[in-house]
């Protein structure tokens, strides 16, 4: 087995794999994380809002996203976004926006539901007295949230948010189903072009393992450091 392993194909393709593929994966992960945490935090605030219809709407959205397979959601947005974009531009027909933006919107909206649940737990872990203290000082809702509650919630939830980001990093490989060239998509293309399936898929697995394992070790490290500060 191992004596038939063709290392040469990796040597020939690694520039393409990392320059085209991995940069797509990392950009997508980073932007979807930022967008997902932003919308997830807003969703969490909506879910905890005293305005009932807003809370139901946010809760419905989060539960819907969490009940559906990511692959199905990727397909949904892949076909839906061009329609919405076309309508937005007044073109009267669907406009193509490309695999990257389609994937970015999908992962932002999908992960927002998961980040929302993390942020909700984070906000709920802050004692109520903090909010009352904010109001007593004359701060309004947004200032109380922005200056008092959210900074503490973020710090408490940082390890969980980062762990979810590692899951997001792994999940971006599913853009394969819309033929985007992320790291895994690039590996699959080389594998099929050169008929080196065993080598390329094993190599992809090793690369994903090294990055995910490395990042989760860092998160574990951070977790113990944060625990000491508290």
């Amino acid at each position, binding site marked *: 087995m191992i004596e038939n392993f063709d290392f040469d194909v990796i040597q020939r393709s690694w520039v393409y794999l990392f320059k085209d593929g991995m940069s797509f994966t990392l950009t997508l992960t980073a932007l979807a994380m930022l967008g997902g945490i932003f919308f997830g935090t807003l969703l969490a605030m909506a879910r905890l809002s005293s305005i009932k219809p807003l809370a139901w709407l946010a809760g419905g959205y989060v539960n819907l996203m969490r009940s559906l397979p*990511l*692959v199905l959601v990727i*397909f949904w947005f892949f076909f839906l976004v061009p329609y919405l974009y076309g309508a937005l531009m007044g073109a009267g*027909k669907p406009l193509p926006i490309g695999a990257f933006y389609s994937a970015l919107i999908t992962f932002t909206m999908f992960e927002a539901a998961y980040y929302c649940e993390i942020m909700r737990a984070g906000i709920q872990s802050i004692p109520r007295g903090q909010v009352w203290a904010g109001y007593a000082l004359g701060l309004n809702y947004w200032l109380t949230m922005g200056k008092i509650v959210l900074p503490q919630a973020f710090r408490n939830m940082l390890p969980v948010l980062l762990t979810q980001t590692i*899951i997001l990093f792994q999940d971006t490989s599913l853009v*394969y189903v819309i033929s985007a060239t992320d790291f895994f998509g690039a590996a699959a293309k080389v594998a099929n072009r050169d008929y080196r399936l*065993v080598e390329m898929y094993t190599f992809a697995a090793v690369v994903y393992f090294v990055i995910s394992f490395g990042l989760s070790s860092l998160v574990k490290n951070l977790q113990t450091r944060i625990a000491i500060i508290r």
Partner: protein
Amino acid sequence: MNYNWNWGILLQPEPGGTGTYLHYLIVGLGWTLLTALSAWVIALAIGAVVGTLRTTPHKWVVRLGNAYVELFRNVPLIVQMFLWFFVIPELLPKGLGDWIKQMPPPWSQFLPAVMCLGLFTSVRVAEQVKAGIQSLSRGQGMAGTALGLTLAQSYRYALLPQAFRIVLPPLTSEFMNVIKNSSVALTIGLLELTGRARAMQEFSFKVFEAFAAATVIYLLTNLVVVLAMRALERKVRVPGLISASASAGGH
């Protein structure tokens, strides 16, 4: 949004000649459930063993268990799916590998998909089982030792019966994850629910009807699983405990 909705498409025959599109999707749900349930059996069996071993006082056994968990947790599911489908049959002895590759169509995808999802989920089950055992008070194991039970006996009679009842609620969400994750099997050609919705979209060009139908079927399935598991949870709840907390995240 000028999209021509045509819900009647669901009652029109699909090109394969097996019946209507709706029937085609329902059969897909059958494959989704069969894949998920088969994988779930593997995941429970391996996860229970690995999770238990990771709480034992044997250092090397714990390390081995941790390595197993890290291995399957840090590689994306689709990559594992491709490894099981394309790579493992090549690494097996030639006769066995060829036998797997030459199985008739749905089974040659079904078997790798079940193995992949089973092992992928087993590490999540192992985490929950480990957490469940560690949530028991240390006195339980010590009492077992004080009574003269061996390590195996105190697991068998004191720790595991309690732990399994405690981990049931978090396992519900893991079971829902297997159902959702089984959609990744479409990448190796298994026509489960999402795969069939995608195929229906390609045959009929009715994008949103196809995906909306699949969405509704997934939501109904989730509802049934949640209700069934809630009934089961009520039955096995440990009297006196508030309820085991499930860890969030993942999918």
